[in-house]
């Protein structure tokens, strides 16, 4: 419990730091008022409307008061509307989050499904043909920027063979499973392949170390079958690096899949944020940054807890 509370307090400090910094960001932007008015559209120019708009953003208040209002709006979910489209910011973020989380989950699942068996086999046959081949291929995917992968796969699968759409649409799984699959397949693959390559490299390295451990030798001596050694004994203690990388990537994928989202015209959270920056949608960007930060720290908090489950030594260390 003490460990839990310690991590929780760290999480709260990070949340405070992020929200405080973000709340001040708007006022720090050069010509913020003019940019907001321009972003709002050509109609909001008379003084009354201008003052109403700027007052609603609390830009003219002292720093600490701005922060207070910002937190109050955050907590009460009074996030306002976008300057340009007059879309509810909460709707915009939830729409974007929905797409990004789908991409993240699908991408991670595919990556893990590819990486784990390959890593197991490569580590088991360390130095063999399969290991060398998979290592070479994985380096290829790691070094290939995903916009290149998106372009190549896009040209082949959308323009030439027309198996998948060139621009993806956010169609829900239950609305049409087949259309959902068609629209999310290519973006998912583009995300998953480099991830899978990275995960495979990490897991393979840890597995090779684990397979050289005394307890594995003992298990072999006792005649335990190879699959049982790999899956039952070697895999779990080798997951540390993989879990850490996967956890970091959860946050990165939710907010940072801009290239893939742009390549397939999916309006996920990352793309919305970038477009928001270009369109002076400061409020949207502020809230999005906070949401992403919360996703990051929450995931990392959960991963810290998970470490104890993965390795009894960590649990023992905490207790000790």
């Amino acid at each position, binding site marked *: 419990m003490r460990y839990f509370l310690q991590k929780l307090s760290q999480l709260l400090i990070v949340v405070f730091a992020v929200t405080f910094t973000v709340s001040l960001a708007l006022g720090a932007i050069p*010509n913020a008022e*003019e*940019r907001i*008015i*321009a*972003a*709002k*559209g*050509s*109609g*909001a*120019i*008379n003084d009354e409307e201008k003052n109403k708009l700027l007052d609603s953003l609390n830009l003219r208040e002292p720093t600490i008061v701005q922060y207070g209002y910002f937190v109050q709006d955050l907590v009460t979910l009074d996030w306002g*509307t*976008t*300057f*340009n*489209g*007059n*879309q*509810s910011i909460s709707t*915009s973020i939830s*729409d974007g989050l929905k797409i990004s989380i789908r991409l993240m989950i699908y991408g991670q699942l595919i990556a893990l499904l590819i990486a784990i068996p390959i890593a197991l086999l490569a580590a088991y046959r360390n130095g063999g043909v399969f290991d060398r081949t998979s290592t070479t291929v994985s380096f290829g995917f790691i070094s290939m920027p995903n916009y290149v992968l998106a372009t190549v796969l*896009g*040209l082949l699968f*959308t*323009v030439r063979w*027309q198996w998948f*759409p*060139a*621009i993806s649409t*956010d169609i829900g799984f239950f609305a049409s499973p087949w259309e959902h699959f068609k629209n999310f397949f290519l973006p998912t693959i583009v995300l998953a392949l480099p991830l899978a390559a990275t995960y495979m490299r990490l897991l393979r390295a840890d597995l090779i170390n684990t397979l050289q451990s005394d307890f594995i030798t003992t298990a072999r001596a006792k005649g335990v079958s190879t699959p049982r050694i790999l899956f039952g004994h070697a895999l779990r203690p080798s997951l540390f690096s993989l879990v850490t990388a996967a956890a970091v990537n959860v946050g990165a994928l939710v907010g940072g899949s801009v290239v893939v989202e*742009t*390549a397939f*015209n999916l*309006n996920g959270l990352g*793309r*919305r944020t970038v*477009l928001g*920056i*270009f*369109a*002076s949608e400061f409020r949207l960007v502020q809230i999005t940054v906070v949401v992403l930060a919360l996703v990051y720290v929450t995931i990392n908090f959960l991963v810290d807890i998970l470490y104890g489950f993965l390795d009894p030594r960590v649990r023992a260390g905490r207790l000790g």
Partner: protein
Amino acid sequence: MTSTIRSRKRPGVLFGAVAVTIGLVAAACGGDDGGGGESADTPAAAETTAPTETTDVIDPMTAVTPGGKLVMGIEADTSSPWRPAEMVCAISCHQTIRSIYDTLVIPGSDNVPVPYLASAVEPNEDYTVWRVTARSGVKFHDGTDFDGAAIVENISRHKTALLTGTAIKQVTDISLDPADPMTAVITVEQSWATFPWYLSGQIGYMASPTWLAASDTDEALRAQPVGTGPFVYVDYKPQEYFKAAKNPNYWNAPFPYLDEIEFIPIQDSLKRRDALKAGDVDMIHTGNGEVITELRGGLDGFTSTEITKNGETGYSLIHVTQEGSPLNDSRVRCALAYATDNDAVNQVVSFGVNQLANGPFSPGQVGYLEDSGYPLAQDMAKAQALIAEYKAENPGELKISLATTQDATNLVIANYQKDWFEEAGVDSVTIDQIDQAQYIVTALLGNFQVFQWRNHGGVDLDQQYIWWHSSSSLDVGTLALNFGRIKDAKLDELLDANRASVDPAEKKQIAEDVNRLFATECYNLWGSYGVWLLAHKSSIMGTDAANLTTPESARALEGAGIAGTFYPHTIWLQQ
């Protein structure tokens, strides 16, 4: 139409130009666009691949198969709220919102404004009072009657708007005719013969007063437009799609032909092309030289139509009245013009698609001159001589800042410009890359020296009034549409004279004089005239705007008045 206007282009383009400029700054660059170079009497739309009927006028009652859905890939979602007075409307925005709103006037096939949603637009003798009469029996999509009060309400809202408010600054009163509830009376402070053009663009879009009032208090409603147009709003998600369904009670039957229409913003031109090829969209528009070049070569199953008439000009703005700036001296400005090699930019960046510009007016626009006096070819020796002459009188370092967007193509052009300007003798050229939103504001605030831009599509010189007249040239730091802060009494005189004139010969002379004045003073560094291309599946018909007719059988101007657009009313699918 009872208007006696004889002038050429439509106000729609003017306001389109505002929007286009505001919305397409990222694309603005001296060498990014180009014109087809047709003469004034060349049709605006020219087939480039498999011949179809797209440039022919269709007999709608015999040739058309109604029904179906069109999905179009557009270059951006540049709208703000879908309220006419607040839209920051680029080409894609106009294309989209035309499905919902009708304009009071449309550009007619004879290059004169023709009443569309209005039944009449009539001036008094000296063009200081205009009576705009609503077409009877028309209702907005929400059931509200379209009448004189609706016109008053809509145009009044523009008076306080930043962009369109500036455009109708000279409107002093907008009121309902007490004797005729269908007629709005608009009073202007000086003779304004070309005023109806302004009713064919953004100011002419008519939105439901009921909806406008409701959306004053409920901001979410502002994204759900209600007009009188051929389609009824269904759904809109910014940066994702805009969907509309056929208005079964459209007042100008048999339009529209389609049952549904959807617009999907796809910002990258190549991706837009791929989406067309993959069948994700049925139609795209593009100004990208690479895509245009490819589509000019022809693609099986697709047809493309080029629109060059009245398009924008790509150029570099110069701030000409900035305190202490070397660019206040015309010798420095003209040196930059002579130092520039637009042909190189056109070949490298635009695949040679564009026609080099020598002034603000493209071929076909009134005021275009084959030789305006502006240098079309690079003359580095002359540029160096002019800079040397300036430096002899103004010792010290000559520094210039050049603003561009974060777009890679625009940066390439900026680097070319930097090299040329420094070769001409400028000691230092600093390139400032600015994000698009800030870029627009930077232009509005006048915080720049040299600035890549695109603008000035249109028919009548009057449509450029707000960009160049000193009344729009406000102090640096104040939002103003005369970005370069030009204050030129001669230019003001010419613009005012054109505004008051209905004599085509006189207007032509004035526009040409303006063109020459720009060349002499080098107020801008002209780049190239823009080309827009509509590419679509060959089964899509009716893209030529001339297929749109009024109930009085007047036809719309081919090219729909805004380069790269069409009227959604007239599109139909060949079975």
